[in-house]
């Protein structure tokens, strides 16, 4: 199947942002509520994928995903094809690359849930998991939304990792951002707009819609001054 660069980008960025938002919940929960020093270290490690130049990270992932490495071989057996140069590989790489952007805002939101609210749920008999599911997560929706947006936007614009791991295969792993780069450089700086414009429009639309929804939902932040 051949897909347009736009549809690949849409599929990749939507699924990355969504999966990441789900993964961010337990991860941020651990970072915020476990309380140990271990989780401070964990948080720093998480943020590290951020400081690696994308191309370097892409290379490291390539090494890890290669069918010649044990994990890569395992994945290749499971998937029926090697990870690199496939959409699955692209997705996995994007997940790793954008993880800190989704986790950071969620962790921050978790931190701002008032302790009294958590305590009240415990008093009523809720176990830690129920407190998390029914109180912490619903009260952190704004942070989860921020994380989703950052994860989404970051994946749309990703270049280095996607180029390395995906192999820029038209119709399979060639995203809009790779196409825009190609067009830009091959036309010696004159082209590129045909790829950039849909990228901009699509992203602008998605982000604007989300912002408006988020505003309408209003904040559930507890309001200590009673009206």
């Amino acid at each position, binding site marked *: 199947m051949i897909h347009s660069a736009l549809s690949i980008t849409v599929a990749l960025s939507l699924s990355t942002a969504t999966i990441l938002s789900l993964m961010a919940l337990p991860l941020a929960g651990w970072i915020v509520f476990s309380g140990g020093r271990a989780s401070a270290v964990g948080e720093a490690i998480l943020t590290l994928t951020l400081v690696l130049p994308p191309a370097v990270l892409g290379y490291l992932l390539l090494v890890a995903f290669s069918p010649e490495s044990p994990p890569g071989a395992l994945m290749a057996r499971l998937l029926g094809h090697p990870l690199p140069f496939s959409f699955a590989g692209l997705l996995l790489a994007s997940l790793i690359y954008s993880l800190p952007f989704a986790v950071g805002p969620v962790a921050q939101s978790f931190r701002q849930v*008032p302790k*009294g*609210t958590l*305590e*009240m*749920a*415990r*008093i*009523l*008999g*809720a*176990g830690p998991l*129920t407190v998390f599911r*029914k*109180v912490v997560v*619903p*009260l952190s929706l704004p942070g989860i939304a921020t994380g989703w947006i950052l994860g989404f936007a970051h994946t749309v614009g990703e270049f280095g990792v996607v180029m390395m791991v995906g192999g820029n295969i038209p119709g399979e792993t060639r995203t809009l951002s790779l196409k825009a780069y190609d067009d830009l450089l091959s036309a010696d700086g004159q082209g590129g707009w045909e790829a950039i414009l849909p990228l901009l429009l699509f992203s602008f639309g998605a982000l604007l819609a989300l912002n408006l929804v988020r505003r309408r939902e209003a904040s*559930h*932040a*507890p*309001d200590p001054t*009673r*009206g």
Partner: protein
Amino acid sequence: MRPIPLEADLLLSRERGLPSGGRVRLRLEKESGIVGICGPSGSGKSTLIRVLAGLPPRGTGVIRVDGVAWLDSDRGVDLSLSQRPVSCLPQGAVLFPHMNVRENLLFAHSLSEKQGKGRGSLARFSLSEALRRWTGTRTSPLPDRLRTLVERFGIGDLLGKGPGALSGGQTMKVALARAFLKDARLYLLDEPLTGIDPEGRTRLTREVAALLRERCAMALWVTHTPGELSPVADGMVALSLDQGSMDRTLGEDRPPAGFDVPFGRKVAEWRR
């Protein structure tokens, strides 16, 4: 010989978790009853409530309910909140801001059901709950137990409102009803009727007392209007402030000046 329903001998402390505060002893000899707690601001009433509930800060000493040690510092016993059959209405109780009144109550209700059934029924419960949500929690009929409570506390009109759209007194009533959705041996009520009008206070005082009798449960009840509580209380404990300092010495023989306390030796005991 039946064990004493409630006895506690505690050393409370607040600053930096170090025992430096006051000593409080209390005792209820009836199966079901109310012990009032009063005392000036900062005398440690809320701290006492929290220590009995198993919330921080931890106290030192002994708490024994129906002969079971909840806390026994010498033997290293200290049951956690979830192990103590208590329900608690902390001072400045909070409703969950993301749930309306009905959802707040249903949440507490479902938690108490889960507790009753034990862990095994978790899966079944979640499914039925999910179904209930699909069919629209907002309109489905309330469980009987909940409906009765809603009526007794007079909050039927508020079910559809969000916590942000309640008045101070309405919030308090809902939180009180919610606390009584949990079945407990000991109810810890920290100024439960604060911000409620006199008529409501009288009515709710009677309702709560009746509920406790029905459930054969005990309550510790912090109040700043001990006169209003005395008709239903089995005794009153008065905490006091040390001279000039804000540290509590909770061991005075007489209630502090300014309180008109019915000091019942019969069931609640207070002495140095």
